[in-house]
């Protein structure tokens, strides 16, 4: 039977303009790997948004990273100042990975 390893996946929805702040926070928490994917369309407290903004700053992206369970608090604490100042959505999910040495 394949052995799986429990990890935490953190998904962060953020505008492109604020993405560098999130990356800085992750670097401070010693997160070494993440992936950023573009978002197409959505609706939030300020109404609808879509990817066809003029310029890149307002485009929404999702940054996803997988971390060890014991490192989760450090990452979330590092993200707290960014969450307090800018509009970002952070969610955490339990996931399982095959190669534990990668995460």
């Amino acid at each position, binding site marked *: 039977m394949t052995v799986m390893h429990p990890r935490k996946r953190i998904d962060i929805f953020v*505008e492109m*303009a*604020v993405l*560098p*702040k999130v990356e800085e926070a992750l670097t401070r928490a010693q997160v070494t790997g993440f992936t950023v994917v573009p978002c197409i369309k959505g609706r939030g407290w*300020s*109404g*609808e948004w*879509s*990817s*066809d*903004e*003029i*310029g*890149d*700053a*307002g485009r929404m992206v999702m940054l996803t990273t997988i971390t060890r369970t014991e490192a989760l608090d450090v990452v979330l604490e590092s993200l707290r100042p960014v969450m307090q*100042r*800018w*509009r970002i959505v952070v969610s955490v999910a339990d996931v399982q990975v095959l190669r534990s040495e990668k995460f």
Partner: protein
Amino acid sequence: MFDQILTLAGANLASPIVLFFALGVAAALARSDLTVPEAFAKGLTIYLMLAIGFKGGVAVAKNGVTLDFLTTAAAGILLGVLIPVIAHAILTRTRLADPLNAAAVAAHYGSVSIVTFVAGTSLLTLLGVAYDGYMIAVTAIMETPAIIVGLWLANASLKGDERAGFSGQLLHEVFLNGSVVLLMGAFLIGYVSGEPGMQAVSAFVEAPFKGVLCLFMLDMGLLAGRRLAAARLLTPGLVAFGLVMPLLSASLGLATAMALGLSPGTGTLLMTLAASSSYIAVPAAMRIALPQANPAIYVTLSLAVTFPFNLSVGLPLYYFAASNLLG
């Protein structure tokens, strides 16, 4: 006089640029699935910045850097400082917006829209009116001061950590945003290569320019229409501000042009720059430095109210005033 205004307005409204913009707005409001692909739209922007910057640089190379250029640039900076202060005072005293959204909106109205400027140059070309090429550089110079003034106005109502800081990322966004780099870069290339350079690339930067601008305006219309359809936060008072503020700013631009003794064409462009409001560079800066302000207010007001107003009514009006009071 009234006939003259109507003729001008008619010529402007019947131009393909305005009509393609209107088509985009109508398609978006009707929820048509018409879209301009994102990468293609980016390509159009790059082309327009390159062409307008290059043409401006070539025009300045003909006359050299004149005192007119330097004084107009200085006056442009002054307008960029004055207009946001006035806009902020109007918005806060009439309670149309809270101090932070007022500061963000004020920064947009103090800064400039390169697309409105391009539409202004197209109207002048259509009418056969000459203007100074250095106005391209003035456009780039006028983009920044209002951002700094807007953040200063916002900081006056914020405390401690909430205050907008001038971080490296913000300065990078303000001074090195793609459109400014390309516009100024192409301007310098046009200035260095001069008329021989223009002869070499005119088939690329001149002949297709108007057609590309039509495509770009179609995309702008679609974006403005979508913003308008989803504009729930714009009160009638804010919409009225979006229509009155450009007239007020254009009047300041006209007074400045009169004081500087600018030609009708160049004066029209200074009025256009004063009346236009940003929807690319300033929203990016506000998202970084003033996240408490709401883009659904400041971008929508700038893109979906003031831009269409300037394009359809403002430009012929500014030219009419400039042609009668300047030169």
